[in-house]
């Protein structure tokens, strides 16, 4: 409910208060309802005495479960960043339950921009010199998996920074409990082509290869499981689906 309408509604309820009081004598029942984060507790009766529970101001900064959605809860994480478009779908499945999909799992992703910098951090060394992006949230976001177990994101193909293969970070929470911390890797054939394309060409090809990367390089089996399968082109952008298996 919009705040203005909510206040109007409250004014009406307040005005009706004496009439409700007059008609209520005993057997009160308290019902609590929550609508989009605005919790309203109302006392109703079946003939006994009762009072209308005061409604308190929520404050101008609702956010957690409030009327204003957490701004990181978004499909489009671009935040003004440019690069080769990348549309990702993450499917969360339970490996202990016949690979059935998991709904309402929170999938967080974050990655660097085309120049190899992350939003939010200060004094980042990099190929374009030290950069600070405190207060910015681009290329970060989360989604809850839908009825098909899918969380989708619209982003750009990551660039790279010294010492790491090209990657995207992920965290998966279920009921606010961290179930998986992971990273996805990219096909080097595609990465090399993207990183030589116009927007990325200042850096060129990432010298840290998947097989020698400090994270991906310790297991070729894991690397194979962590590598995104993508379709598309530099001009059209890429799309891919990655299945996140959780042993729940």
């Amino acid at each position, binding site marked *: 409910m919009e705040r203005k309408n909510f206040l109007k509604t409250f004014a009406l309820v307040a005005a009706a208060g004496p009439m409700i009081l007059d008609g209520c004598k005993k057997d009160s029942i308290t019902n609590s309802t929550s609508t989009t984060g605005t919790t309203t507790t109302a006392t109703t009766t079946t003939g006994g005495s009762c009072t209308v529970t005061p409604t308190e*101001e929520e*404050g*101008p*900064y*609702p*956010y*957690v479960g409030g009327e*204003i959605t*957490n*701004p*990181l809860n978004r499909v489009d994480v671009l935040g003004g960043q440019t690069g080769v478009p990348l549309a990702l779908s993450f499917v969360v499945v339970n490996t202990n339950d016949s690979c059935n999909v998991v709904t309402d799992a929170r999938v967080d992703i974050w990655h660097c921009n085309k120049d190899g910098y992350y939003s*939010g*951090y*200060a004094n980042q060394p990099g190929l374009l010199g030290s950069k600070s992006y*405190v*207060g910015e*949230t681009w290329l*970060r976001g989360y989604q809850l998996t839908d009825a098909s177990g899918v969380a989708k994101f619209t982003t750009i193909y990551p660039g790279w920074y010294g010492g790491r293969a090209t990657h995207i970070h992920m*965290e998966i*929470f279920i009921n*606010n*409990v*961290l179930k998986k*911390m992971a990273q996805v890797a990219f096909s080097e054939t595609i990465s090399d082509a993207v990183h030589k394309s116009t927007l990325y060409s200042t850096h060129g090809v990432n010298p840290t290869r998947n097989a020698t990367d400090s994270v991906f390089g310790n297991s070729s089996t894991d690397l194979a499981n962590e590598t995104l399968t993508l379709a598309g082109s530099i001009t059209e952008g890429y799309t891919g689906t990655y299945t996140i298996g959780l042993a729940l």
Partner: protein
Amino acid sequence: MYKAKVKLVYKQVIDETSESSFEKAIFKATYEEFLMKSQAYNPDGKFKTFNKLRESDGRANSLHYKLSFAAGHFIAQLNNKIPVIKDNLGNKLSFDTAHFELIESHTEDISLHKLAINYETTELTLVELLGEYMLLTQEDPADKEDAIDTFILRMQPDLSIVSYQAINEHTLT
């Protein structure tokens, strides 16, 4: 005439005793984010406090940044005005950047959650010091021959000068 180019920082500490809607919103949002994001550095749930977490795993210092994203939405609503301190005429000061700092938290006790937002001003010119008062201007006196707009700010707890560059009179001519 002019003393220095300065930058000021005001540190707003927020904890369970904070009362404004802004403070309460940030307190709640960042605590919920702490519960979520601290798990990455606490796989067995062995540690309860932020400071124990980072003693155990230095990467937990990333929580300063990770929680800042939860606070950023509210800070953006300030429209670059520091919410607490005012000049002697009651005008809010503008800030350039706001840095989030997690002071302490506890995975099972929200009352121990404590954080700070450090608001840093753009470069100001310190015209004069008058006892505990600073006569400041946002204008660059080098560009002005006539009177300049100034304001007076009292030195107070949690307010500091974090950058000071003395002005050589010759640089103004």
